[in-house]
């Protein structure tokens, strides 16, 4: 027999559990989604100086004429740039295996024969190709970013880039723009999203129509003859999407693949012939680079981290380097990020600041030896700058400005030593070696004027060793997952889940194992809906392992909730007894269940998108097609009904308090303003009047908070049964919360979502209609059901588990200046409208329960104290949502960890995890509100208790006119006082969280 929990202990354990969960979650998130420190700003003249020198002020660099800047760069870098034009041809989704073969073997015959020209270039030594390993997620936009900036973005960078898709980090295109290059882009519109306003000419195609494999490329190629004849551009980007589309529709072995490769080969031939012709006419050289952003799997998909997907191509044509044979031209390995520094050096611009790539070996062969070493030095300096941001500065203590040049570095002898020790020390040591060897070579060259080949190759090797190690270390910083952190986080989350479930079970035992209930215990425990409610989290835990179930989660929520309604219906029908004739109460109940069923089905039909079935017709799409006039009318009608339903709820308690009338007036005003706002609403969102929106925010928060603060005072001077009165008050506060949340959502959500808001409100009212006095559904079951309904409603409002469905437009209503925090809060409110609504309605539920059970509660707990009663009332509404949420969170954390190498880890599982984290936050906020609202009562009860104990000492008689609650207090003053103190402690604990 376990000892009964006191409510203080219960609260302490709960708060500890939550605390543990928060800590575990944050550790896990930071472990799984590492946030790399990035350097802001762009590389400029400084990048040509030693990183240990004091940054000399660059006075008027920004005012420099682009052409002058270009010359300055060239002068400082000391590397002559041979090329003045660049054609970057991006073939979306082309695996390097198609062109270069795999493991030293030439490509398959079908592929090789489809690209005769490219293969001949490789065989002649005119081209050199690399297997450029791409980092996951292998989807177009992050890969393009990696190519032009040299940085590997973390997942969170992608996820939290709501406001703009433009690439703000330092990148090649920006550098080219600064030196006055003219750029032209034809192809995928992703480039335009990344670099708005940078291109002189562009013709973008969309990758939306995946079935289109022909037109999408024809739209690019039709510009090719004109552009090749033009000489007004320096950079021409051609992004062909067709091959990726072929892959998506038919896989690697699609019959269309050969002809698509042939088409690409023809483009290469056209460009190369033109480029060589220009070269022969001595018009400056054009470098032709063919890259792919990612590869594809056998079935043509991409996104994950398998070899087939990360094996992208990097092919340089016209480098003029000496390549001996076909194997040397094809059997090379590089990283995708290496493109950025290589191009920067070849075209004489600074290497982008956050680049982690290294110069592609073999591309610099045409440079003179001092230029090669200088290029490697520049790359090393840039990486060293990046490392300085991530390593403690004490490691760099020995370095000073240009100390290698003069051999004056403190504590660092000019001898070369083997590098051991941990990674960081090793890196410093490798850099030192390279710098020392470089300076030795330089000094020798000055003296002897004929460079020694041996010194040169030693310096070259040392630089390459440093660059390789540094690049790997930096890249691993952005992709590695620290096992210790992850383990710690997962175990903390697991522990907190165990704590929550144990608390729930102990409370459950206490409530349902009382001797009074033991008689009907069997029926209590074996109810079909109880079992079902317990099974729902399990079903979700199992279904979360499947990526398509995660994508279509809304089906499962609706299916579960609808099954729950049907079970309720079954139960009601079971208790039918015709011998008693028709019963109003029962009919009311049946009506509630039917309205639940109907509204649930409508909600499901409203948005049934998900991820894979977005083309399915649903009510919202249909209404939007019919016309915005209808949407507006429907919005007005449903707003009106929401307001009237809310007022009806407020007045249902039949209390004639003034404050209720004030509240009602406040809500009516808000409702009127919202109606007015909806009436004036035109198609564009920016018409929204900020003043009206702000006024509505103000009124709603005043109404909700005012209700919570002022209502408890009004119950002091009543001589009704105290608990019933408190229940009434809580009910009123709960309905005030619910109504203000609904009205807020009517303002924030898209007009089409006003009907789902109404339906959700109806569901809440119907559920509260079910909890009448003879309710046979256990309290915890009802709370769990409310949580499930909240989640089902979350998806009914058009949300899904991709980040794309977040409504960004609504997040700027009523905000006059751009503020990330405020719009973030609004975005959270819009996205979590439904779960929050149902959590807030728990206050209403507690109130109704207290009112309905006021007599039975008192009689049942006459022998215990009121603190116990409070614990029993507040325990389930707080613990059940926390429990369900922590089970789902724990399960999903484990799933994410197991799926870390899954194909869809970045496209499906990680966004879902962000949603799970946000749901956790939402649950915390909701439970906090639920726990804190009755705090007012506790203070007041405390006052009442003191007053009554004073009365007791002065007057004789035990509560003749004070009602049940007071009578209890009078008979057991000491006990009750202590217990209420306990309640106060409990809530203060919750507050402290």
């Amino acid at each position: 027999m376990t000892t009964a929990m006191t409510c203080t202990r219960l609260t302490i354990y709960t708060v500890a559990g939550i605390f543990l969960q928060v800590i575990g979650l944050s550790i896990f998130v930071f472990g799984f989604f590492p946030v790399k420190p990035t350097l802001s700003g762009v590389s400029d003249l400084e990048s040509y100086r030693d990183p240990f020198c004091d940054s000399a002020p660059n006075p008027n660099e920004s005012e420099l004429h682009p052409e002058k800047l270009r010359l300055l760069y060239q002068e400082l870098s000391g590397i002559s740039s041979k090329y003045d034009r660049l054609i970057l041809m991006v073939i979306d989704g082309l695996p390097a295996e198609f062109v270069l073969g795999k493991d030293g073997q030439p490509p398959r015959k079908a592929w090789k024969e489809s690209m005769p020209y490219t293969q001949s270039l490789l065989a002649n030594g005119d081209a050199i190709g690399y297997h450029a390993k791409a980092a996951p997620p292998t989807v177009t936009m992050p890969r393009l970013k990696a190519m032009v900036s040299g940085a590997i973005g973390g997942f969170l960078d992608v996820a939290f880039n709501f406001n703009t898709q433009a690439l703000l980090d330092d990148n090649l295109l920006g550098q080219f723009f600064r030196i006055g290059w003219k750029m032209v882009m034809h192809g995928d519109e992703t480039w335009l999203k990344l670099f708005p306003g940078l291109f002189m000419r562009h013709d973008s195609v969309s990758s939306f129509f995946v079935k289109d494999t022909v037109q999408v490329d024809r739209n690019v190629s039709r510009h090719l003859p004109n552009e090749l004849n033009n000489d007004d551009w320096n950079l021409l980007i051609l992004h062909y999407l067709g091959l990726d589309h072929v892959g998506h529709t038919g896989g690697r072995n699609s019959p269309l693949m050969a002809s698509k490769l042939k088409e690409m080969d023809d483009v290469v031939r056209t460009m190369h012939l033109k480029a060589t012709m220009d070269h022969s006419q001595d018009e400056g050289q054009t470098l032709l680079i063919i890259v792919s952003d990612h590869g594809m799997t056998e079935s043509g998909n991409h996104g994950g981290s398998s070899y087939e997907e990360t094996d992208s191509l990097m092919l340089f044509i016209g480098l003029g380097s000496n390549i001996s044979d076909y194997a040397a031209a094809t059997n090379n390995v590089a990283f995708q990020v290496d493109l950025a520094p290589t191009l920067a050096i070849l075209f004489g611009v600074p290497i982008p600041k956050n680049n982690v790539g290294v110069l592609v070996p073999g591309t610099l062969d045409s440079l003179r030896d001092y230029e090669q070493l200088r290029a490697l030095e520049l790359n090393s300096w840039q990486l060293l700058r990046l490392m300085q941001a991530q390593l403690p500065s004490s490691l760099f203590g020995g370095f000073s400005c240009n100390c290698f040049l003069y051999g004056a570095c403190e504590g660092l002898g000019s001898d070369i030593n083997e590098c051991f020790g941990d990674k960081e020390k090793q890196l410093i040591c490798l850099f030192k070696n390279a710098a020392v060897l470089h300076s030795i070579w330089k000094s020798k060259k000055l003296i002897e004027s004929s460079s020694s080949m041996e010194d040169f190759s030693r310096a070259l090797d040392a630089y390459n060793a440093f660059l390789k190690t540094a690049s790997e270390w930096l890249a691993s910083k952005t992709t590695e997952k620290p096992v210790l952190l992850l383990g710690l986080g997962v175990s903390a989350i697991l522990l907190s889940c165990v704590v929550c479930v144990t608390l729930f079970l102990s409370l459950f035992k206490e409530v349902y194992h009382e001797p009074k209930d033991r008689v009907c215990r069997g029926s209590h425990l074996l109810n079909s809906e109880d079992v079902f409610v317990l099974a729902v989290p399990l079903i979700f835990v199992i279904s979360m392992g499947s990526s398509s179930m995660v994508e279509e989660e809304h089906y499962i929520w609706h299916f579960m909730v609808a099954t729950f309604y049907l079970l309720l219906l079954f139960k009601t029908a079971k208790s039918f007894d015709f011998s008693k004739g028709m019963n109003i109460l029962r009919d009311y109940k049946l009506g509630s269940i039917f309205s639940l069923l109907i509204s649930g089905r409508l909600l499901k039909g409203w948005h049934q998108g998900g991820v894979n079935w977005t083309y399915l017709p649903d009510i919202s799409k249909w209404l939007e097609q019919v016309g915005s006039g209808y949407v507006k009318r429907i919005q007005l009608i449903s707003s009106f009904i929401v307001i009237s339903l809310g007022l009806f709820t407020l007045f249902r308690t039949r209390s004639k308090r003034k404050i209720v009338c004030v509240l009602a007036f406040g809500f009516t005003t808000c409702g009127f303003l919202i109606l007015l706002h909806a009436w004036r609403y035109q198609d564009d969102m920016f018409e929204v009047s900020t003043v009206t929106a702000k006024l509505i925010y103000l009124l709603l928060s005043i109404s909700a908070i005012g209700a919570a603060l002022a209502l408890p005072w009004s119950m002091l001077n009543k001589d009704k049964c105290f608990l019933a009165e408190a229940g009434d008050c809580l009910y009123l506060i709960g309905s005030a919360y619910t109504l203000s949340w609904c009205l807020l959502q009517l303002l924030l959500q898209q007009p089409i979502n006003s009907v789902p808001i109404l339906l959700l409100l109806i569901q809440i009212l119907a559920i509260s209609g079910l909890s009448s006095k003879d309710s046979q559904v256990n309290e915890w079951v009802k709370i769990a059901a409310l949580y499930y309904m909240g989640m089902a409603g979350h998806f009914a409002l058009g949300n899904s588990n991709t980040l794309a469905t977040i409504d960004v437009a609504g997040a700027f209503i009523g905000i006059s200046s751009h503020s990330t925090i405020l719009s973030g809060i609004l975005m959270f409110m819009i996205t979590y409208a439904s779960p929050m609504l149902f959590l807030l309605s728990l206050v209403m539920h507690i109130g109704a329960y207290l009112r309905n059970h006021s007599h039975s509660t008192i009689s049942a707990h006459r022998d215990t104290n009121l603190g116990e009663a409070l614990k029993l009332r507040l325990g389930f509404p707080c613990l059940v949502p926390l429990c369900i949420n922590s089970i789902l969170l724990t399960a999903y954390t484990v799933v994410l960890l197991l799926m870390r190498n899954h194909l869809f880890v970045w496209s499906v599982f990680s966004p879902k995890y962000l949603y799970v984290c946000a749901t956790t936050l939402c649950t915390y906020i909701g439970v906090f509100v639920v726990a804190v609202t009755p705090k007012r009562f506790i203070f007041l009860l405390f006052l009442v208790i003191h007053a009554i104990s004073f009365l007791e000492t002065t007057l004789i008689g035990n509560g003749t006119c004070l009602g049940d609650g007071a009578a209890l207090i009078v008979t057991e003053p000491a006990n009750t006082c202590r217990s209420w103190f306990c309640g106060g402690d409990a809530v203060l604990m919750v507050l402290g969280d």
Partner: protein
Amino acid sequence: MEETKKKKKPGTSVGVSGDVSISALGAFFVHLITGLFLAVGFWVARNKYSVDLISDPSFTLRLLWSIEFPLVVIIYSSFRKNPEKCSYSKAVGRSILGLISGAFLNVMGAIALGAPIGMQYLPKTIHWSFLMSVFTFVPATAVYGASWTDWHRVFASMKPSGNIEYMIFIPAYGAMIGGWFGAWPMPLDWERPWQEWPISVSYGAIGGYIVGQTVSLSLITFLRKHKNLKVA
């Protein structure tokens, strides 16, 4: 899949138990024949019309229920309650009514659980619901008519008395639960033709029905042995 079936109109409760009993062997044969007719339905669909549940669901479902329905009516009407008060033809008549009302309730339940609504789904849904009704409603209406107490006792309280009641309610529940589970693969992105409504649900329901028949048979034999032991 549906629990809606409990919504029958209040009727006169005939509580007298003058029902025809059935032996375990008889129950076995009844289940065998109904199961066989289902197989016959599939066979006819495949060999005579060369369709199946996947290529033409509505036609196959129609074929299935129109073959199964007369058989169920004929068999279960002979087990009707109070055979002296209620003629055979009356039992047949009320089971036709039961077919329609049961189909309606099944449709309602399926829609509540998320079955798609639309003209292209209408024939499939209707024929599916008739088949479900044959599994769930028709035997019970043939035996009990509209007697609320009997319905309540058998389906809600689950206190069956006699073999025939086991034979009615366990396969009925089996069909519903099987259909519920049959809906699970529908949202998956396997892009198989059988994931369409109502194919997987029909498979689930038929599977559940057959499992229910087996369970009811084993219960009947087990209980009989138990009773015999008690008597001895």
